[in-house]
């Protein structure tokens, strides 16, 4: 029976590592554009790339630890199961030096991660794009179960209260690419969370608060935008699109949207 458990734990570790190894080629990895067919999706915002680097750092540490401990575990189990009756066993129980080692090493690793990640967090929250540097493009209001979005008219700045020339969309957030932008995140009812997986941007929307969220998008295309907080029975309906376009296209889109929104039905009777 002892041999079985040795094989079982080593085999399960091998399978787990193997599955992780092949997961990217099945698209079961980070969302984003895949590089050369293989791989982990690459984040589409500069902060997203830093967050990915953090993930990879932690992943390497965890992988080394996991493989190492399982190798030792497998060896010990096997050795214990196959030991001859006449052989003398070794008891390491109560070894102070061992205990000191496995307390100090993980503590050091954890401290390292804790200090190292502070920089990325700072960059995400305030260091790289302060709200002053990022252009406020829209006010995003979550409600059960949709996203209502208000933009300032072209050439104007976003005001905290609605203006007569504001442009509105539902479930489609248009942003320009290539420069930091910010949104004012609100909720009309319960708590929701603004989440664009491919940008690695996630922020809770909290009743009563207006929370600025800033990010940049590197590639002009559509990204999935979802609610990441179980907000009620229709949570699954809070699926929207973040539409990133170049600066010129963004201006052109806003002109078109404004024209449509102020349509008086007179010239275009077909609508």
């Amino acid at each position, binding site marked *: 029976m002892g041999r079985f458990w040795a094989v079982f734990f080593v085999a399960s570790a091998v399978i787990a590592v193997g599955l992780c190894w092949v997961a990217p080629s099945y698209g079961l990895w980070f969302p984003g554009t895949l590089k050369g067919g293989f791989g982990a999706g690459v984040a589409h915002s500069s902060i997203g790339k830093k967050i990915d680097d953090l993930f990879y750092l932690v992943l390497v540490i965890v992988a080394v630890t996991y493989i190492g401990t399982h190798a030792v575990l497998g060896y010990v189990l096997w050795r214990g199961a196959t030991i001859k009756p006449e052989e003398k066993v070794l008891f390491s129980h109560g070894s102070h030096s061992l205990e000191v080692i496995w307390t100090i090493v993980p503590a050091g690793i954890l401290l390292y991660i804790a200090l190292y990640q502070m920089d990325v967090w700072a960059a995400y929250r305030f260091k790289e794009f302060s709200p002053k540097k990022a252009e406020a493009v829209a006010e995003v209001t979550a*409600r*059960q*179960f*949709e996203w*209502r979005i208000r933009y300032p008219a072209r050439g104007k700045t976003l005001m905290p209260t*609605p*203006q*007569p020339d504001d442009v*509105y969309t*539902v*479930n*489609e957030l248009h942003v320009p690419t290539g420069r930091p932008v910010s949104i004012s995140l609100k909720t009309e009812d319960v708590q929701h969370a603004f989440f664009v997986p491919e940008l690695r941007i996630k922020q809770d929307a909290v009743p009563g608060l207006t929370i600025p969220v800033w990010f940049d998008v590197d590639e002009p295309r559509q990204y999935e935008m979802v609610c990441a907080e179980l907000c009620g*029975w*229709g949570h699954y*309906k*809070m*699926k*929207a*699109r973040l539409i990133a376009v170049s600066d010129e296209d963004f201006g052109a889109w806003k002109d078109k949207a404004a024209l*449509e*929104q*102020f*349509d*008086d*039905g*007179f*010239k275009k*009777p077909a*609508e």
Partner: protein
Amino acid sequence: MASRLISINSFAQTVTKMSCLRSPYRLAASASQRNFCCLAVGIAVLLSGCGQGPKAEFSLRDATGELIPAAEKVVKKTLDEKFGTPQNLVAWQRFPVNYGGVQGSVADVAKDGVTTHFEGDLPAIHHGAPLLWLSGPRAGAKTSVDSVATFDATTKQLKWAGSAEPAPAVGDKFVIGYGSNLQTGRVVYMKNCMHCHGVAGDGAGPTAQYLNPLPRDYRLGLFKFTSTLTPEKPTRDDLTRVLQHGIPGTYMPSFRWLGDKETTAVVEYVRWLSMRGEFEKRIDDDMSNDYSAVAMEASAKKANEAYQTTIKTAKKEDKPEKPKTANQLIKTALEEFSKYEKDDLPGVINDTATLLAESWKKGEEADSLIVPTVARVADNEASRERGKRLYLSDKGKCYTCHGVQGRGDGVATEDFWKKPGSDEYYSHRGLHDTWGRPLQPRNLTLGQYRGGRRPVDVFRRIYAGIKGTPMPGFGRTALKDEEIWDIVNYVMSLQFQSAPTKSIVTDHATVSK
């Protein structure tokens, strides 16, 4: 024209169970060998955790349930025959519903099939797709639907299952995949709409009870936010717009993320559900005069009460005749009903179908669409002032409901109102909609536009009113288009007017102290 019914085969039941979060059972397993067994059971439970929900059914209207049993049975039978069940939908060709599919024609007739011709790109055709003949000897009657056996994309050879006779002729038209819109629409509807709007579109889905305002009941054939004239049905574009933009201030969210195919399909499905519901209502209305069991019971009870009071006071010789009991009334009605079913009902069904088909068709016609005859009047102080005067005038009377300041608190909200067509009053103060629910006039200072915020949307609301609500239409009669634009300019400026007057602010401050 013979009425043609096409049954659309069901596929797996599409009702998704609301909640399928179930934790796997934990089986007590002490021996290690049982671990694997436990794991296997756990996985099996996880996989089967989302069991089938209750079977979806088109519920009948309350009024149908009030009919005498024979009449109720006939209504149910007719609905099943013309519209089917959620599992087996029927496409009644009398109705202007785009049931879906691709149209083609016969290019050549071979021994055991035909060579086909399609306009444009060749569609994907699968084995088993319903094949409906629109013209030629195979069209008409019940044999008009076959199913595709094989289709060769290179030679365009089409073979179908079933009888070869009568053979189609060159030029005969057919539709493949007939009913696909209804099928797709059903899946989209069951996943996203049913839990509020109900399987039959009765606005009484399982989550409806938690909502305010309640979800729309399509079965009156009435939709509030349309671009059409007061008596007309909504257009497909109107329904699509509501679907894509949602209705702020209600629980109707935007479904922008649905694909084009799904959007088109679910709009057709909702139109179809609405036609089905209104069809049932109109048949009920026709029968309820003579065959309502509830009405008979009520009248028998009333007559009996009157009889009881008279015999107490009347003299022995002129005692009134004993009135018929409810059972006697129903028995007579049952006898008459078989005659009605045979002689009148087919005509009633036919007329109702025609009426509905015509009205929905008419809604899509260009004449039904409200198009302002003048462009929006320049939105300036003068126009807003004119709009304000009209708002407060006897011509517009907007203030009676929407309040002098546009806060939706006009005097009409304080009154008790009579139910339409009766002397009975509603138990609640204020206005009610056609569905009999209390209704608040819109607070115009919030900048919340349920039917869309484009000036033309607001214009249409004032021009044709809001269907199913006390909001009347002013276009063509009370107000000229220029005047409506003035009101639009005034109403749309209300949101941006200065904050509440000082006295209100002070009051508020006092209250919060």
